[in-house]
């Protein structure tokens, strides 16, 4: 069964450093998402991406964050200057275009970011 893959699974970084989290969505999917989950809290939406542009973002997704689809397969989340409060599990997700299967969002296994 096709799946969303994420790298790295765990990254430790120093405060102020730039971090890039990578994702390979399911190949025929067209909508891409990043969510995050701070330890012990619920999963929160960060951003959605379609047709090479951001379609929706939350208040969490400030100027420190950016997303990119540099080629036909990867989808990245960049945090420009990490803060302690950025420590969280970051989930990439993707969705097909439309139809019955287009209404389910599939998640990757997550990238655990620890900022020290």
């Amino acid at each position: 069964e096709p799946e969303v893959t994420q790298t790295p699974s765990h990254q430790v970084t120093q405060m102020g450093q730039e971090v890039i989290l990578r994702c390979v969505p399911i190949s025929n999917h067209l909508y891409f998402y990043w969510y995050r989950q701070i330890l012990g809290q619920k999963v929160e939406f960060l951003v959605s991406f379609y047709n090479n542009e951001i379609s929706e973002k939350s208040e969490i997704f400030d100027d420190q964050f950016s997303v990119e689809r540099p080629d036909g397969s990867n989808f990245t989340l960049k945090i420009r200057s990490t803060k302690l409060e950025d420590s969280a599990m970051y989930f990439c997700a993707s969705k097909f275009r439309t139809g019955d299967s287009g209404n389910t969002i599939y998640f990757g296994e997550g990238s655990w970011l620890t900022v020290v």
Partner: protein
Amino acid sequence: AQTVTQSQPEMSVQEAETVTLSCTYDTSESDYYLFWYKQPPSRQMILVIRQEAYKQQNATENRFSVNFQKAAKSFSLKISDSQLGDAAMYFCAYRIPNTGFQKLVFGTGTRLLVSP
């Protein structure tokens, strides 16, 4: 704004028994999707079951079934013949369909403990 509420922070069940996890939501929409996701200790978000609001029939997936009460805005998950591998966090989520970009809104989760 749409909200999802899971009032049970933790539930316990014995192997082979049945357990029901509660979820209520608030929306002014008439057409939407509801999901239950499972998050085991590995932290991956795994889709358990999906319900379309326009369908009166409750969704079932093997040992997992839902009790969808649209008027009451209730969407509970029933796990039959519980297994040790069912132990995880369970998140209820809501999404508006057919709008492409719309995000999932998650509840705070219910931790399910399964004892032998």
